[in-house]
């Protein structure tokens, strides 16, 4: 019995160890190294043939110099802040757009739901890159959007959207919308409609019933959706580099430049480690808090 439980626990922990902790430790190790003109372009590398002395030399050569460097240039914290801001705003907009869609889907007649679900998932069948590229054709100055606006007489001059932060927001919201809709839909679909009827019987208006019953019961879906959008959005590289302008500052782009232009893998790794900490620490704190509340309720 105990052995079976042990095996059951071992699988997820083994997964985390192999696919999260080990890669993280490799990145952390590079972050503590120095650049070198060699293959790979950093030093020290572990030389096990030298035995104990080799291991000692290896650890002796590691230091936190690169993390200190990140604090000395305002580029890095400005890029982190700007990424946080872009990710937060995008997540909020995605929520505001996605919730009504999920709500509509969950309240639609039973026989429509598979089709609606299909429509949400369908874009995934086309490459993400092609879909982002096609936004260039829509948003550019001679693009469909501007042609339509000018045809409709809403603007006389073409709006400059492409290569600005506006295009980045549009790209992120568009790309990640299904990740918001699906978890919210999953919780709303399970919601017991008789609860709403009971609330209305007891004198709640429909709006009150929504805020008192539907909103709290779909909370877990909203949280899951927000995480699924926020976490990839903060490190996003493809969307800002295709749709954003040279003034769009995001940490993914800074990381690319450290890695490719400066050939400084250690500083690039230090940037990545800090990014991970910015994401992981608040999420752990948040989940602890959730758990404590659940225990209190019980």
């Amino acid at each position, binding site marked *: 019995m105990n052995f079976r439980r042990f095996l059951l626990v071992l699988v997820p922990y083994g997964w985390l160890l192999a696919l999260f902790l080990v890669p993280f430790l490799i990145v952390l190790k590079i972050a503590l190294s120095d650049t070198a*003109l060699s*293959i790979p372009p950093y030093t020290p590398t572990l030389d096990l043939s030298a035995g104990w002395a080799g291991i000692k030399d290896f650890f002796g050569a590691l230091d936190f110099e690169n993390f200190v460097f990140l604090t000395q240039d305002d580029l890095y914290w400005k890029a982190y802040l700007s990424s946080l801001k872009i990710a937060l705003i995008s997540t909020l907009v995605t929520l505001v757009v996605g919730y009504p869609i999920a709500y509509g889907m969950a309240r639609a007649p039973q026989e429509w739901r598979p089709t609606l679900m299909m429509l949400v998932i369908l874009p995934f069948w086309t490459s993400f890159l092609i879909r982002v590229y096609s936004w260039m054709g829509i948003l550019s100055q001679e693009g469909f959007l501007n042609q339509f606006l000018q045809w409709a007489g809403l603007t006389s001059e073409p709006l400059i959207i492409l*290569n600005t932060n506006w295009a980045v927001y549009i790209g992120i919201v568009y790309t990640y919308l299904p990740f918001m809709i699906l978890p919210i839909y999953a919780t709303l679909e399970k919601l017991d409609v008789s609860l709403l009827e009971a609330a209305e019987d007891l004198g709640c208006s429909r709006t009150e019933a929504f805020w008192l019953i539907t909103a709290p019961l779909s909370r877990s879906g909203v949280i899951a959706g927000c995480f699924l959008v926020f976490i990839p959005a903060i490190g996003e590289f493809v969307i800002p580099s295709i749709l954003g302008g*040279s003034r769009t500052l995001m940490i993914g782009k800074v990381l690319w*430049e450290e890695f490719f232009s*400066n*050939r*400084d893998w250690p500083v690039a790794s230090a940037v990545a480690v800090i990014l991970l900490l910015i994401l992981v620490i608040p999420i752990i704190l948040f989940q602890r808090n959730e758990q404590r509340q659940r225990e209190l309720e019980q």
Partner: protein
Amino acid sequence: MKSTWIPLAAALAACVTAAGAEEVHVYNWSDYIDEELLTKFEEETGIKLVYDVFDSNEVLETKMLAGGSGYDVVVPTGSFLQRQISAGAFQPLDFSKLPNAVNLWDVIQERTATYDPGNAYSINYMWGTTGIGVNVAKVAEILGEDAPIGSLELVFNPANMEKLAACGVHFLDAPTEMIPAALAYLGENPDSHDPEVIARTEAVLGAVRPYVQKFHNSEYINALANGDICVAVGWSGDILQARDRADEADNGVEIAYNAPSEGALMWFDQMAIPVDAPNPDAAHTFLNFILDAHNMAAASNYVYYANGNVASQEFLEEDVIGDPAIYPDAETLKNLYITTPYDPKVQRVVTRLWTKIKSGT
């Protein structure tokens, strides 16, 4: 049982060696060869050619320094090649397998030896300059007939740029090319590695930054050809390709390329074999094929870049060999400069400065 296994194993082994010996993986710049040459290579040698492309030296260098790229032939630019040679990324060429190397041009060999001493690790594929492409009619309309289209004044003087902005100006997104150009404009040594001297370019580039529509390494070809922009700081052959596309489209757009009179960067794209190339023999066969005078001429006639192959010159078309924008005359040649790689500290200053200029942070 045994008797069936032996032939099977032998057949498998034969397959493995055949696949190993008869494949070559080439990693070259995009839009940089006449694709008919690739088919011709496969037909002549029977070697299967896998041809991939990249669009920036940085991407190639990161692959080389990570090791195990799986490529047999790569094409870095001179200053990048030099750094990768010192990192031990390439193997010395075996010239006994390159009989066509006699075709190499000594004028170019002398210059590439700066990056690859003795030309031991690489052969020249193409070379060119970084200069200014203009839409002749539109620039004349905005700045008058005597617009300084042959001078860096056109793109680094804010008074000119302010007027050109509405029509559209693109710069290369390559700090290792734009900063030397700004230094040349200031009258400094374009190859200066002194951070204080390099810092002076911020004033030049920062002053014209508001008038630059985009920093990009390839979009300007079509943008110039379609008449969407008036001016681009770009690579010679790319601007000449834009000129050609406009001619073919017959859209009334006339593009001209000029190497600036203050001096222009001359660069060399070199073919080399990574130290861990899986098929070094096939790689040598490919290099020897490229070194053939007819093949090299076909490539240059197609992409409008000069090559380092003196024997190919008699097969070049007149609009290539006779165009001083491609094969500069002695006068222009004097005006060209080359650059050497920055060490990591200076490289960081340069990248940081470039980010600051582009993003304002």
